[in-house]
């Protein structure tokens, strides 16, 4: 594995404007790719921006509700033209592209703080919904006010160095104590409802403690 150049983009979104913000993502990714970056990372909830008002308004005031409606309208649905643009950009530039979005499901009204990972082959290779919003985050769903001009930080990263460093310390390996401390993770997808005939498996995905215990 060769060293790889990564780009961390600190930039301002066009607040609550999904398409214009996507335009900035594409332009900045092109700039970073031209500099040789193979992984380009954007901030939390970059598209269409962080609902900064949750920290400065009273929850559920009319003003905040109007802003929420706007955020909802501009949120990103996976599988929509918005994610197609991001996937196409990753494929065209042959980069890994990580972008934080305000995500909503096609069918519901809840917004998630989600990080999307697009691969150089133009596929959506990973998606992470933040597990626990912080404080005021709760009020919209899920700190990205850039003071002054944005910019792109570049770094040359050699994963071999990380592996070599783990000779000293490997918390999930030789410096773990799985005989004493064991983490069980329930990776079952959880939907609020499931539909089917009574004589078929209409139950939500069963919780199988035996598998995670």
């Amino acid at each position, binding site marked *: 594995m060769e060293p790889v150049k990564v780009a961390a983009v600190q930039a301002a979104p066009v607040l609550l404007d999904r398409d214009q913000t996507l335009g900035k993502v594409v332009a900045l990714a092109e700039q970073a790719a031209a500099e040789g970056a193979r992984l380009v990372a954007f901030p939390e909830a970059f598209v269409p921006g962080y609902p900064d008002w949750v920290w400065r308004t009273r929850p559920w005031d009319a003003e905040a509700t109007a802003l929420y409606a706007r955020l909802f309208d501009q949120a990103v649905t996976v599988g929509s033209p918005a994610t197609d643009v991001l996937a196409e950009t990753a494929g065209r530039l042959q980069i890994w592209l990580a972008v934080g979005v305000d995500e909503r499901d096609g069918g519901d009204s809840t917004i998630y703080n989600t990080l999307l990972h697009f691969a150089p082959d133009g596929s959506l290779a990973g998606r992470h919904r933040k*597990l*626990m919003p912080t404080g005021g985050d709760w009020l919209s769903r899920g700190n990205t006010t850039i003071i002054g001009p944005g910019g792109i930080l570049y770094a040359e990263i050699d994963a071999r160095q990380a592996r070599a460093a783990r000779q*000293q310390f490997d918390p999930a390996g030789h410096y773990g*104590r799985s005989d*004493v401390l064991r*983490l*069980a993770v*329930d990776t079952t997808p959880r939907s609020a409802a499931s539909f089917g005939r009574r004589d078929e498996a209409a139950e939500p995905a069963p919780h199988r403690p035996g598998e995670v215990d």
Partner: protein
Amino acid sequence: MSALRVAAVQAAYVLMDRDATIDRVAELTAAAAREGAQLVVFPEVFVPGTPIWIDTQPIWEGDEDWFGLLAANAVVIGSPATERLAAIAAQHQVWLAVGVDEREEHGGTIYNTVLYFSPQGVLAGRHRKLVPTGSERTVWGMGDGSTLRVVDTGLGRIGGLTCWENYMPLARFHLYSQGVEVWIAPTLAVGDGWIATMQHLARENRMFVVGVNPVLHTDQIPAGFPHRERLLPPGFVERNGPWLEEGNTVVVAPSGTVLAGPVREREETLVADLDLTTIAIQRRHLDPAGHYNRPDVFRLHVDTSPRPAVVETPDTSLTQAPAAPPNVAAAQNGQ
């Protein structure tokens, strides 16, 4: 304000001399108590010190006499050494946390252990380090899950992990779930990276953190130490400086703000007043074992049972009365 006054003692041990080092514990604890300290914390394996040869020499090369000294000066729980430490805590009416090289009475393995003594002179807690680091694995064994308990002092809940154990997230989480308020991190770790770790832990669990290091200057190696001339290879001091342990003692607030230290390259006791009422207020932001956890997704299983190497099952077939037939037993139980 319910403040706890803590003293973090950065001092030099008397290398591989248990009794002389306990003399130092007595004198430094007395000084801290005079300043009003209610909790006095000493560094990792302070009694009788760090087996420094593991980092100055290739492993097991000419270290026989040094390891022999370590074994002979290790601290056995329930021996006169721990009785002296308990008496020091009682005499000065303080909680005393002190790192020791521990061994079982008839054991050949040394453990890296922190002992907690109450102002009543009782050994109230004990933690054996779970995983020694690098070259430490050539001198220390591993603790089991039975010594991962937070101690309720009545002044605050104290507990912690030793040195790089602090980088074990599952062990941290286990102690966080017990409501630890003052985190004790005896360590040998030096440099700014370690201070960042202490600040990270404080912010992670919104608690006070007391990181305590020893110091040892090359001049403090006892004159009569065996093979003293071999202990430091040629060029060692030129490359590494004269401090074998340079110190890094620090006290951090739940916000991550450094309250005292870090102090380096000298002996010094840091004294700080910890206002424990701020912890609950800070945890409204972040409570990693409470509202900022997702127990539906993550669940930690901890085996806290002591793990002795041998469990004996005595053969009682010759001495026990024969068991009553099952029907008789059931009748007697009214079933």
